[in-house]
């Protein structure tokens, strides 16, 4: 049940990011979850949907869950290796299974869709759509 700790972290980070962007509401948040995290999607969604009500901007947020593979470096040939199935990790180039994790081993808040308070956001919005 590390989903609860993770959800708590996600919701508080989203609230902070949204405030910095002068958002008045967060419509959706895309979360990239590494297969290495062994997170159960339904469990995480349940925790997120419970905790989001504790914050002002996320009360109605929809969380979009995306599973992401792990990035390894092959210690034999140096190739970058992307793997989703951790039960048989091998380098697609040389077949070596001697791999070191280089990324995609955590949970990431990828992006979010927000509604902005136009009166308060000036320069911030220029980078938007």
């Amino acid at each position, binding site marked *: 049940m590390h989903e609860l700790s993770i959800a708590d972290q996600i919701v508080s980070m989203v609230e902070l990011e*949204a405030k910095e962007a002068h*958002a008045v509401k967060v419509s959706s948040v895309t979360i990239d979850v590494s297969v290495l995290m062994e997170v159960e999607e339904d469990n995480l969604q349940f925790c997120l949907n419970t905790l989001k009500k504790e914050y002002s901007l996320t009360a109605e947020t929809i969380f979009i869950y995306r599973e992401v593979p792990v990035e390894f470096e092959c210690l034999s040939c140096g190739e970058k290796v992307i793997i989703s199935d951790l039960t048989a990790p091998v380098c697609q180039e040389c077949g070596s299974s001697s791999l070191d994790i280089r990324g995609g081993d*955590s949970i990431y808040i990828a992006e979010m869709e927000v509604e902005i308070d136009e009166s308060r956001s000036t320069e911030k919005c220029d980078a938007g759509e």
Partner: protein
Amino acid sequence: MKVEVQKNVMQANNELAAVLRDKWEKSGTTVLNIISSPGSGKTTLLERTLERLQGKVKAGILVGDIQTENDAMRLSKYGFPVKQIITSGTCHLEAHMIEKHLPDVDADGLDLLIIENVGNLVCPSSYDLGEDLKVVALSVTEGEDKPLKYPGIFRRAKAAVITKVDLLPFLDFDMTAVREYVHTINPDIHLVELSSKNGEGMDAWVNWLLQKVDEKKKVNLSR
């Protein structure tokens, strides 16, 4: 409006873990984070380990559990400072818990800090505590396919300890298969097979540990 965030949710924990790792780099302290399911024999393994470490290294132990001081009471009989971290429900240790309780066992610099995580083969594996080595323990009563079922921890661990091998004559546990599964997930892992009960394999385990402590001290002295 779309806002790019691209932030690691584990960032706060990872940043604190990096601070701890830096501190232990400077003090030349080797840090072990032992992870396994409940009942695999982590605490007994540590008891027999601490017996063998007496007079050889300055060690300290932090032990995590959801409830009770039982493990700290068992581990405090060997002359090393021990602190129980009671998580009251949290299924894993986080870096801030280590930071908070570290002063209780690390008054003037340690050679070796052993962290016994909460018994759980999933959640603790994602929380960096600033350790040098994650060590996964698996007992022969649990079934040889555990590495395939819990690849995360076997992938992240630097060593795997198969415990309770004295029970092998009474079980159908397939030792050849577990070796193969462990190495399928992580071919570079250091594999140890031992029995805390009859002492088989204990010397090899403790010597490996002392070697790791030595290596880190040497790196530290040469700087």
